[in-house]
């Protein structure tokens, strides 16, 4: 087998494992991957794309809500957090989801400073994840272009 392909595949495997180990992804991501097949080869990419669109929208909403200094509607912020928590949970975006859990509590406590800080973290986190997954998809593409197949990575 082509050494180049083998090397790419190993790189890919290690990369995926590191994403799980570092807590970026959880078993729901594994579940999504398992739903992908030759008939729906881009399923994961499509779902993630929608997720990141959601992130942009929801973070925007939250930022606007938190901008209303003195009259911040924490329920509104909380509602957006809830949605983000939901979608991050559905795609396996573990860190984002974890932040949302904290964020929710901060909203309930109407902790303005806390919310602002948490929102910044959420912003960084989803963008980081997006970049990581982009790297992952790029590796997949490279493997395919080099004539190989993308390996199934066993997380356990």
């Amino acid at each position, binding site marked *: 087998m082509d050494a180049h392909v083998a090397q790419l595949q190993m790189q890919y495997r290690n990369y995926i494992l590191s994403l799980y180990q570092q807590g970026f992804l959880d078993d729901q991501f594994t579940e999504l991957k398992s739903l992908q097949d030759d008939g729906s080869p881009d399923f994961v990419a499509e779902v993630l794309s929608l997720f990141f669109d959601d992130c942009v929208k929801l973070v925007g909403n939250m930022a606007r809500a938190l901008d209303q200094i003195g009259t911040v509607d924490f329920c509104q912020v909380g509602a957006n957090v809830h949605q983000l928590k939901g*979608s991050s949970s*559905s795609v396996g975006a573990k860190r984002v989801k974890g932040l949302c859990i904290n964020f929710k509590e901060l909203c309930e406590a109407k902790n303005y400073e806390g919310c602002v800080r948490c929102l910044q973290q959420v912003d960084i986190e989803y963008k980081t994840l997006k970049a990581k997954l982009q790297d992952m998809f790029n590796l997949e593409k490279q493997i395919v272009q080099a004539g190989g197949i993308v390996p199934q990575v066993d997380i356990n």
Partner: protein
Amino acid sequence: RGRANENICELSLVLNFNILSSQLLLLLSAMASDGGVSCLRRSEMMSVGIGGMDSPPLDVDEVHVLAVDDSLVDRIVIERLLRITSCKVTAVDSGWRALEFLGIDNENASAELDESSSFRQVPVVIMSSENVITRIDRCLEEGAEDFLLKPVKLADVKRLRNYLTRDVKLSNGNKRKLPEDSPPLTLSPDSPDSSPPPSTLSPDSSDSSSPPLSPVEIISSQLSSPIDDEDDDVLTSSPESSPSPVRRQKMRSPGLD
């Protein structure tokens, strides 16, 4: 309590569609908007009139799931999960679209159903990201067949098919054959419900000669007040959803005014 995020879309339906070629299951997500009380109050409210007693037997294998979820990401995922399990799927983003899909016309909600119609209940399964036992219990008590905790997995979805192979057909219009494994009606300790337990279609209805229909109001409400989980009476219809009251058959539903 101030937990603004526990929300479940209230959806009670009057369905009057003729001849389903497939069995329908309603998969209903707890919507992420403010307010919310209990989940689908009574699944016996969802009855489907099938024209004529001699309707062809439903194709048990063909399952049609109407999934209602306001999250696009979740809709895409659930659609994929359902397609993999060979279900036909329609995914909509709101209770209203669900009603549109079902062809419910509020004006005709009080239309008479053929007396010889047999009724079939539409099983309802609730999905939510909130793992709160009291609310799960409440959903089940109120007639939901099952409760799926999000994120939903393939194994969860495979379970759904079971709810359509059981015969929950109503004969004589009124009697509801309870699923074998329906949980006993108990109020969980931390829901100080002052209202009586949900009245199922009264099994002691003596009008067996004329099967009365059990249409009920269409209520799809996403309440804007903060949650009060325990307050049954907070259920109010959203402005667009006040159809003229339809005939209710032995339905004493607290809060449904």
